[in-house]
């Protein structure tokens, strides 16, 4: 599998797929997509890269990515608490013409968790299976 073709394909396709994943995250509010789906797509792109260039060393601390992701989502909710609102109250921020719901930050947390968790699982079980 470790062929030149695969590498070339991966070199081109993987970044595009990552970008598509991020796009899915961003448009989730208005059309199918969202943090979870975006995260999975991104993770698949990274796996494609691993297939082509070999997986990274095992010692990577995936758990930190997971913790950070859940942490971001939770902290987004806590921001409302600081303003005296119930936990997880979101607002829509307007930066000029750009509409930015704060729930997007929440979704970013989801995205991060999904990417880290998926990659952790694939990486670990991959090694286990080989």
């Amino acid at each position, binding site marked *: 599998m470790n062929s030149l073709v695969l590498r070339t394909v991966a070199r081109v396709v993987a970044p595009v797929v990552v970008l598509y994943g991020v796009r899915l995250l961003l448009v989730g509010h208005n*059309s*199918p997509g969202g943090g*979870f789906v975006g995260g999975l797509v991104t993770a698949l792109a990274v796996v494609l890269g691993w297939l082509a260039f070999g997986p990274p060393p095992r010692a990577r601390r995936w758990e930190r990515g997971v913790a950070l992701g859940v942490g971001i989502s939770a902290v987004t909710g806590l921001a409302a608490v600081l303003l005296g609102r119930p936990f997880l109250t979101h607002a829509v921020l307007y930066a000029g013409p750009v509409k930015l719901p704060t729930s997007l930050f929440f979704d970013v947390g989801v995205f991060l968790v999904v990417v880290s*968790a998926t990659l952790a*699982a694939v990486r*670990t*079980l991959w090694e*286990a*299976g080989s």
Partner: protein
Amino acid sequence: MNLVLAALVGLLFAAGTWLLLGQRILRQVIGLGLIAHGANLTVLLAGGLVGRHAPLLGNPEPRADPLPQALILTAIVIGFGITAFLLALGYRMHALEEDEG
């Protein structure tokens, strides 16, 4: 259509149960996967099949009920995590055999 889907749900549950009652870990995990599909379809059916359009605001009425879809989304993610965990557990149950003798 609802009868056909209900029959599929029944089949998923029956097949999943059959695999689960066997004694091979990976087939049990597959069985749990089938049952999870069945349960998700059940939740979807609970929203009714009246919707002719996807629950996007731009779409005209009648739209499908978004709540069951959201619930299933959550259930799918949970199921995904648990499947990964079960696979790792299965690995530990069998693949470490030679380490312990």
